[in-house]
């Protein structure tokens, strides 16, 4: 059943990390944002910047969900979502747990803790990775509260585990 959603925005499913480039520890995620800036250039509203951890960040207040950045992204990690769906696993890593953990500090390892704690049955693990069904999600935030890796974010910035 498709809902009538007031507003869509683009969202980058990678938060980047201090180690987003290959480094001494060998952390190197091949799925995440590579900071190429393609999306930044594509956005006519100047709503996208490259954030402090090397990953693109969308200013959702400016974004109108036109989808140009989604086409421009070589990593395929920008998705169009309802702006009000506040809780999202901002990671695109599809490696199994150990490899995902090695690749990045902020990676989803598919541990299923969010899936178990979701009251709505809205979360499934697909490709070693948490996926939230927007139709079923009711924005309670239990997934964020329970996520042991800090992958799931409140994009509004209201609830933050490391405050």
């Amino acid at each position, binding site marked *: *059943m*498709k*809902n*009538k*959603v*007031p507003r869509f925005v683009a969202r980058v499913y990678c938060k980047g990390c201090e180690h987003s480039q290959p480094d001494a520890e060998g952390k190197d995620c091949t799925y995440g944002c590579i900071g190429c800036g393609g999306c930044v250039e594509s956005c006519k509203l100047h709503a996208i910047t490259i954030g402090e951890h090397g990953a693109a960040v969308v200013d959702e207040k400016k974004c109108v969900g036109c989808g140009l950045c989604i086409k421009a992204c070589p990593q395929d990690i920008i998705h169009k979502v309802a702006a*009000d769906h506040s809780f999202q696993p901002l990671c695109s890593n599809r490696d199994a747990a150990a490899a995902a953990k090695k690749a990045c500090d902020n990676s989803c390892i598919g541990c299923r803790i969010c899936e178990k704690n*979701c*009251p*709505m*049955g809205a979360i499934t693990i697909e490709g070693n990775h948490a996926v939230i069904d927007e139709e079923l999600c*009711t*924005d*309670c*935030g*239990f997934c*964020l*509260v329970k996520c042991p890796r800090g992958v799931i974010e409140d994009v*509004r910035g*209201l*609830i*933050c*585990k490391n*405050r």
Partner: protein
Amino acid sequence: MIEICVNGTEYQVEKDQTLLRFLRDVCKLKSVKDGCSEGACGTCHVLIDGVPQKACGPMISMVQGKEILTIEGFTEREKEIYVRAFGEAGAVQCGFCIPGMVICAKGLLDVNPKPGREEIAWALRNNICRCTGYKKIFDAVELAAKYLREGESEESAYSWRLGERVPRIDVREKVLGYGEYVDDMEVKDLAYGSAVRAAHPRARVLSIDKSKALAMPGVLAVITAEDIPGTLEVGHIVRDWDTLIPVGKCTRYLGDAIAIVVAETPELLEKAKKLVKVEYEVLQPVTNPYEAMKEDAPKLHEKGNLLAHKHVSRGNAKEAIENASHVLKQKFATPWTEHAFLEPECAIAMPDDDGVLIYSTDQGVYATQHECAPMLGLPNEKVRVINKLVGGGFGGKEDMTVQHHAGLAAMIVKRPVKVKLTRAESMIIHPKRHPMDMEFTLGCNDKGEIQGVMAEVIADTGAYASLGGPVLERACTHAAGPYHYENFEIDGKAYYTNNPPAGAFRGFGVTQTCFAIEMLLTKMAEVVGISPWEIRYRNAIRPGEVLPNGQIVDNATALVETLEAVRDVYEAHPYAGLACAMKNAGVGVGLPDYGRCIIGVKNGKLHIRSGASCIGQGLGTVLVQMVAQTTGFARDDMIYDASNTIDAPDSGTTSGSRQTLITGEAARRACELLNQALESKTIEELEGEEFYGEYLAATDALGADVPNPVSHVAYGYATQVCILNEDGTIEKIVAAHDVGKAVNPLSIEGQIEGGVIMSLGFALTEQYQLEECVPKTKYGTIGLFRAHQVPQVESIIVEREGLNVACGAKGIGEITSIPTAPAIAGAYYRLNGKFQTTLPLTDTPYERP
């Protein structure tokens, strides 16, 4: 140290806890309701930096430095506007979801002062309401937006007479959240109790080791069956429900209580419960009625597994069907349904002289008294029960779930004890709607006139009787439908299993059999070559005619008018389906069914006192309107007191759509006595006097040896139409209801909209899955319709005079939910040609994966 700002007050706290617990327990902000504590219901919404957020998930450390706003922190103007808007729109029923709705409304209106309907619905998408069907809440938000933008209009001067669209009398306390549900009470020296539940649906309890739990500091008692002073069992009609399962006996379902632990705090309680060790001999559960009816099936109760067998017969159905031109025979099945009321079960009990006082959220304080007293070893009058606000019931709060445990614990520890079910417990414990397997045979002549109906019904009544017998009976007596024919035979059986008990649920069995008979009629219309509307119109019961149960219907019978009211809309749409229904008002079938009400004169005001629960349907408002109508007194001169066993007379359980008619008539009779007294005295001279009204709704027993037995004092009738869009989504439901005299049309619309949306779930989305007697559904996965998913509901109120009691008003509570599912299924049959016989329907856009 965690710093947090709530309603402008800065708090510095050491202990991290969820925002919900902090707001309720530390800040004592009781507008923030605890409906599930699992993120599914939305009753605990608060504003965090102006943005609505459920409070049960985040820990306060995660929102440090943020500003939290609850309704208590609104400006006075905002409070007045939301009270006005929600009252005038008729948006408040049980009220438990309302503060959360108001929070989300403010979150929207602060950034969007003039939202459209879709934007409002979207803003409320994370808040479940089980009463209203959301429509009137959208109306309320629209009205609040208007008042905020343009200022409030002059408040209407209500007369409070019958027929007026007055706001409910309890709107203010429910909108602002200061009205007390049991869980909101602040009680000195309160202890907390909770039961250790069965680990297996069927297992013999071999031993219970309480020693470790008892040794834990802060644990006050671990109560087991041998501590019960009176009888072991409780039960609404059949006393078959073990308060606690004793060692040596078998559990009957997962909700069975083994031991009640009482502790100083909820945290200690949870820890202590884990320390109670129970040894079981695990046995194979009886998972369905077909296993239960086998000769070698284990006997779940002493008398065997057949709880009830009902046989209803008039005329000669077999012969009539044999001689009919057209015969259709078909099997149907309907599923378990969970009530999903927003307020979980909660009771607080305390020692009271040499008895016990129980604060409850239930559908009948006297039922609670009568069930608890023998178990507690007390005479009835020493068990006093007071209803607090009831956050929805729908039949699911007619049984003992927490009241008896709280009473027992309070007597034993000699302190006030609160017993509250978690949402997960509530999902398992209280009785559900009976799943029924039905086979119907319908014979008609060439004109589509019904010649005879035969049916068999098998119901799964689960672990305990609850109201299983009467539900089966109502399913059988109403299976004939609201039609005029003579040959009818139905045989129904309800079997015990190890599933959760099945009991009362809005519609009381009729929801199930109505689906079957109405689907067959729709099919028969096609066979005969007339429209589904026409076949119903030809057979519809009319005043003075005889129902298949033999009852001659009265002049207030307006089924035909409900059909006529929807004819144009039905015929104008290619993908429309319709169904009719009837539903009794009152217990009927020869059982003593009393309404009682006292009007007391105190300080010049009329106190309306009746032991009849308002569970959100608006009984208090109905009684106030009845009294205003009959006495001419002004609203300000009346006080409606909550139902209780102390000074309010027993007016029966809120069940069977009975309170408006039966308690309404009792109130009217009390008013008549008051009026007589006022002929010779002034109200001042009547100070301290009481006027007692009693009404016995006299009926004949089922199968009574009289030519035309009166089964029920009144029936309500309805026709509902479902209109589909080309894509299979529902455009709207049009519901025409015969209500006799409409006491408060605003409230009636609310009942209709809520009942229809509830059954939209029954028809399309809801599930209550059981695997080997183990419930697998959580509150969030039932499939309750959400605000942004509901179609339009158009209510048509059909009034007709002829009922000579209660100023002509019939109950509306249940029938609103009855014809919805077959109307919807009929519409899909026209859209896709698939004749469906089970619920929820498949191949719809609403189908869940």
